[in-house]
């Protein structure tokens, strides 16, 4: 960070400058008069809540979207990118968060997709392609056969191939949108080494990540966006994680979260000797009445696999599960698991509300009442549940013209409330919630936190997964830190920080490595 500070102090050239960018999609404003500049040889963090406008800004830089107003300058001259190809030719390379590789092609075919070198008769020059790919992969320290199918790679390897793809394009500006989401600590270190190398070569890197530690580890500058507007651009040396969060949220975090519950009651969900896979360590956990428990840790460490195996949507290696003291027949079946658990009062609120949660083409009423209908056999008379639907909509303050409105017409926050409302209306007593506030604005977030807390206070029990550790710390009473498909630590949320959660997750890994290397 010292190095970074002196770099910024010196006379550095601007790689690119975006000035007064505004963009609206239909009626909703995505960016309002945002300015952003990238310096040569710096790693620039772009921060903000979901929906703050980060992705839109970067997509404009990458030529995916065109700004409604504002300009992009390079060396004082205005430039425009009509297509991603133009931006790429200009030297702007993007590694997007969602993996964009085609699984049924080889690594080399993916790397050269759309610009394959050809031989005299127009056939693809595989020799050159494979050679160049091997070289690009080697630069990242990867020893992979370019003829390997992408489907055979691990998620981390795919992410590296994606990065190699960007680096190979010989660009001068790199946009890395949550590049570490699928990587473990060791891979993150490899990636950081390459980012530093690129920086030292004088490239400019935009780094989007929600992980505070990474931001402070690797970035020099930070720009914060909030509600489509620029908050500030500052050198990271002047910031602390706390002041950065305050800048992102725009208010003190504690205002966002409801009061915690002092005393949890009798156990509602008991898990003993649970093993997610044959090679993972067994663990136990419990959730009491009135309690909200979070499953924290790095992403993809088994939190979701654990929660889904409780309702039969993932096949665990084994374990004992009891609900309100009653032992389940475990593991439960894939087809009947969700119905079985719902009959015991356990509801899983899935993460992806558009794909797994809601019936977008159907009404709010149908979406909410479905949890109630599902408790019955198909050959029983259907209740209208009009009163129940209205009650649920009112108690959750869903903003809509009425129960007949289609769910697809609602905002993300209201959709999320409808989804949660289905499980609340169905009278569940234990909720397993994946990503309770993904992609919803801050106002709706705070309301959803309140709803979950009310549910717990009325005698419910909640297990929450979230990528946003801050959310888990603020919302929950107790946290389990999950790493490598097992629980490695337990802490009161009150005393938890992002730092000690990461510490708990990673120190476990370090100690294991040590054990393995000791003869």
């Amino acid at each position, binding site marked *: 960070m010292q190095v970074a500070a002196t770099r910024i102090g010196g006379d550095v050239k601007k790689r690119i400058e975006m000035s007064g960018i505004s963009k609206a999609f239909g009626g909703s404003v995505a960016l309002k008069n945002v300015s952003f500049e990238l310096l040569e040889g710096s790693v620039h963090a772009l921060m903000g809540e979901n929906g703050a406008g980060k992705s839109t800004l970067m997509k404009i830089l990458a030529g995916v979207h065109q700004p409604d107003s504002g300009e992009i300058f390079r060396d004082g001259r205005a430039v425009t990118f009509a297509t991603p190809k133009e931006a790429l030719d200009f030297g702007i390379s993007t590694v997007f968060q969602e993996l964009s590789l085609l699984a049924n092609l080889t690594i080399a075919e993916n790397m050269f997709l759309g610009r394959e070198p050809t031989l005299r008769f127009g056939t693809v020059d595989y020799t050159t392609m494979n050679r160049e790919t091997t070289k690009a992969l080697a630069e990242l320290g990867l020893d992979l056969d370019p003829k390997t199918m992408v489907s055979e790679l691990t998620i981390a390897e795919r992410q590296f191939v994606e990065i190699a793809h960007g680096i190979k394009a010989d660009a001068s500006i790199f946009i890395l949108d949550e590049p570490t989401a699928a990587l473990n600590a060791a891979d993150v270190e490899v990636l950081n080494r390459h980012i530093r190398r690129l920086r030292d070569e004088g490239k400019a890197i935009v780094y989007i990540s929600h992980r505070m530690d990474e931001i402070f580890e690797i970035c020099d500058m930070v720009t914060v966006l909030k509600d489509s507007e620029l908050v500030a651009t500052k050198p990271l040396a002047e910031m602390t994680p706390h002041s950065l969060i305050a800048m992102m949220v725009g208010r003190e975090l504690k205002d966002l979260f409801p009061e915690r519950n002092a005393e949890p009651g009798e156990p509602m969900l008991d898990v003993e000797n649970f093993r997610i896979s044959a090679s993972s360590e067994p663990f136990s956990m419990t959730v009491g009445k009135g309690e909200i428990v979070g499953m924290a840790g790095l992403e993809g460490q088994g939190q979701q696999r654990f929660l889904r195996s409780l309702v039969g949507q993932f096949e665990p290696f084994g374990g004992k599960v009891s609900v309100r003291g009653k032992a389940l027949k475990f593991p439960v079946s894939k087809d009947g698991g969700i119905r079985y658990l719902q009959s015991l009062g356990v509801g899983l609120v899935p993460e992806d509300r558009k*794909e797994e949660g809601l*019936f977008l083409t159907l009404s709010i009423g149908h979406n909410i009442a479905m949890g109630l209908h*599902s408790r019955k056999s198909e*050959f029983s008379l259907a209740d209208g549940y009009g009163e129940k639907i209205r009650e649920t909509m009112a108690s959750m303050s869903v903003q809509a013209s009425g129960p007949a409105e289609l769910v697809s017409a609602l905002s993300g926050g209201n959709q999320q409330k409808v989804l949660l409302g289905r499980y609340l209306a169905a009278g569940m007593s234990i909720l397993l919630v994946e990503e309770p506030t993904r992609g919803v604005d801050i106002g709706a977030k705070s309301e959803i936190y309140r709803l979950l807390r009310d549910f717990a206070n009325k005698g419910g029990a909640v297990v929450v997964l979230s990528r946003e550790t801050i959310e888990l710390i603020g919302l929950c009473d107790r946290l389990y830190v999950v790493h490598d498909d097992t629980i490695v630590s337990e802490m009161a949320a009150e005393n938890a920080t992002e730092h000690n959660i990461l510490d708990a997750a990673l120190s476990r890994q370090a100690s294991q490595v040590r054990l393995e290397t000791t003869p």
Partner: protein
Amino acid sequence: MAALFNRTNFNRISRIPPAYFVFAVLLIVLWIARPHMLNINIMGIFIRQVVPLGILVLGQMLVIRVNSIDLSGAGVLLLINFYISSSMFPGASLPFFVAISLATGLAVGLFNGYMVGKRRVSAVIVTLAVNIVLVGIVQFLASGKPPGDVPSIFSDIYNTKLWLIPTPVLFWVALALIMSLFLSRFVYGRYVSSVGANPVAALFSGVPVERTVIVAHTIAGLMTALASLVQTASIAVGSVRVGHELPILAVAATILGGVVFGRGEGGVWGPFFGVLSFALLFVVMTTFGIGESGKLITQGLIILLAAIFYGLRTAKSRT
């Protein structure tokens, strides 16, 4: 503001199944050009012709709503026609034929449902394969034998009328009413809408998705059996060429009736009017002296228009 108004108007109109417009247009054409045709006796006869199609559509509508399809109808129809017209069951009574037909429909429907719902095999492939097997079985059984006659009790019932309306038409309307009530008043209807709109979300809200698909195919099998009985009664002879176009017409009428793959919406009456539109189309074509080939071309064009209409609507609702 004006644009907004237009868009809601478009949405409102596009929610109405195209079958209603087609039906209205054909009715107007007929009323202007050949008013004397709009007579309950003549219309009754034309509508009676499409009753097998109409009953088949009641099942097809259900399977399409759960994102599946049933193309095994022609095979079932042939087999049931063979049961009745050959001397396979000499001297059997009407209840026996009805029972064995329903049993066949049930078995085929259950098999289709099991393969599609439980084994996740492609619905098109399973039901087409079943269709081919059934057709083959009938050809094997019928080889070298002249097609026989259908017991006269079938055509006797087929030709009866209640008040002025042919009994088969009443039978169809009654079945449609039962289906409509079943889907609107029972939990099963909610399951069907949910599975059609988003099978994953249906699973996560506790809907027994596999069972819903199996039940839909089973009901479709039973409907096919009933349609086959009516069809057999209407032609009164055995044939290995009967009704091979019915399944695809059933898919067409269902789509015309506003039921589309991958949306949990649509009901019984849209496809019902889809079938009625086909009946009217035959009347209009016949009165204008257009032959079989012209009818086919027009049918195809109507299906195409319905598909374009839906493409337009999906595009509009995405923006």
